[in-house]
């Protein structure tokens, strides 16, 4: 039976008195590539901040592996976060560390591997993302796409069960973006990792997404939940249809 990895219940996202998302209910199944989509400024990244524990929910809660995360004690939260990897929009690499040191950091902190095994695992993780031989490079010395891949290598360091991606395609050329999509699919299919991806790139959404939610900026609620291809075939409302077709279908009808 497929388990729910993340379940959100009446989740409200807000910054102080400013409500970003009124209420959200959804479930991310094990081995999903779950897309959080919506227009610019709808609160996708804020939702990700809540799910990664950076922003407490204003109301409601969410469960990770069945544990009520906001109510868990600090030790439990740490245990959960050890099983989670995060790829930030710009990679989030520490600029004063080489790529190898960046990837090694979570292994040194949270695993009991020997230093030589950690060095070997760092080589493996960098090779998996196509950065073999770039161990001694600093983030400032590599391109934006390479930074994202190095960030992914770090996110995968501890063999996480869940990996969050914040706008993975942002700032990448189409080929790099497609390669990153393929890499994400490989990780999902071969390692069984559940991926939660915040994006508004339609190519990525249709290429990798197995499940999704749509955040409507106007109503500040989730107005769609399901496989992106199914949502395109049977859009539940006009905003979802416009988003998934870049508004072109409406334009064609108008012409």
């Amino acid at each position, binding site marked *: 039976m497929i388990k729910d990895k993340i379940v959100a219940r009446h989740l409200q996202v807000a910054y102080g008195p400013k409500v970003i998302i009124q209420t959200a209910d959804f479930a991310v199944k094990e081995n999903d590539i779950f897309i959080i989509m919506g227009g610019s400024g709808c609160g996708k990244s804020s939702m990700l901040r809540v799910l990664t524990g950076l922003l407490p929910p204003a109301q409601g809660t969410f469960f990770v592996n069945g544990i009520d995360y906001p109510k868990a004690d600090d030790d439990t939260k740490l245990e959960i976060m050890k099983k989670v990897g995060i790829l930030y929009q710009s990679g989030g690499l520490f*600029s*004063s560390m080489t790529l190898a040191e960046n990837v090694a950091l979570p292994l040194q902190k949270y*695993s*009991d*591997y*020997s230093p030589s*095994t950690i060095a*070997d*695992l760092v*080589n*493996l*993780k960098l*090779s*998996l993302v*196509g*950065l*073999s*031989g*770039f161990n001694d490079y600093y*983030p*400032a010395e590599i391109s934006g796409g390479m930074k994202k891949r190095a960030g992914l290598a770090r996110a*995968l360091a501890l*063999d996480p069960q869940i990996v969050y991606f914040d706008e993975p395609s942002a700032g990448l050329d189409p080929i790099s973006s497609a390669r990153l999509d393929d*890499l994400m699919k*490989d990780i999902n*299919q*071969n*390692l*069984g990792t559940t991926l939660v991806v915040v994006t508004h790139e339609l190519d990525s959404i249709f290429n990798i997404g197995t499940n999704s939610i749509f955040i409507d900026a106007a109503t500040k609620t989730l107005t769609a939940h399901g496989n992106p291809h199914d949502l395109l075939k049977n859009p539940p409302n006009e905003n979802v249809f416009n988003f998934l077709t870049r508004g072109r279908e409406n334009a064609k009808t108008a012409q």
Partner: protein
Amino acid sequence: MTQLINFSINNNTLTLSLGGAFVHFEQTDQLYNTANSAPIKKIIVTSDNSLKNWDSSLLLILFKLKNIADTRKIDFQTQNLPDGLSRMLLLATAVKPHHDTPLNHHDPLLDRIGGYWLNLYNVFMKGFDFAIDNISALLKFVRGKSVTRKVDFLFALEDCGPKALGIVSLISFMVGLILAFVGAIQLKTFGAQVYVASLVTIGMIRIMGAIMVGIIMAGRTGASFAATLGTMQVNEEIDALKTMGIPISDFLVLPRLAAMIIAMPILTMLADFMGMLGGGFVGVLLLGIPASEYWKYSWQAWSMSSFWVGIFHGFVFAFIISLCGCYYGINSGRNADGVGVATTKAVVSAIVWMIVATGIITFIFERLGI
């Protein structure tokens, strides 16, 4: 379930058999040493159906064996491995390791020494040009012909002036207090404690007030200028200004430079006063000098020339702090480290140049008899 791992060599072939669960497993070097040194022509990795649960630690074993096989140019085969594991191994070995092409060009020693000094000269000249550009921009600003935004200037003035009053007052008071204490210990031996008032007054108004304000403002405001402009460099805001044809000196440097020029002499006056107050606190309350006596000696020691020397120092330090802060901020690296380095350089160079300037000013005024 634990891991099952066996290897054997038959017919020049190293066969590795895997089974069970491989989670956080750490392989000893024996397998790799054998693969590296045994007279083999092939490595075969095989698994039985019991191999179910695995993580990167198993993938690492395969990855290392594959690399050894590639290095030794021997055959590597996998049999009956889980699909995901085989595909991850393919992914990990798909891209050949990157190798930097070493530069075969080595400069002779003399060239390198010459290059170092030439570079130092260029850096100095770049800084000098920056200072000249901004001083001429300041003259344009005074004539009202600059594109400086008034609101930026007012923000900078608030930051350099009112917001710095507290720290400048506190530190100057403490410096006056310490000066009086240290002076009193020496003057007591001659029975001349009352001259503590003269010592504190001359010390504070002529140089100490300005130096203390300079050091506080270099650490507080100069660092802030460098960090702000450095972050603007990281966010490409400075590139945007350049491509829009807006002079950086007018838009970013001048508001800060003008604000410092106005704030520093006033802060120096405040520091002079607070230092004298600190000295008076020690003299009157702790050394028992009558208040009227203390102020009489203070007033006797007061001279307008010393006062103006102090204010002039403050004026010069304003240029040094703001130009160092802005120069290093604008020329910052484009990452977090770069901003940190720029901030450090801004503060250190401002303090060094203030000390150099103090030496030069003191020498000139000494020669002029001021």
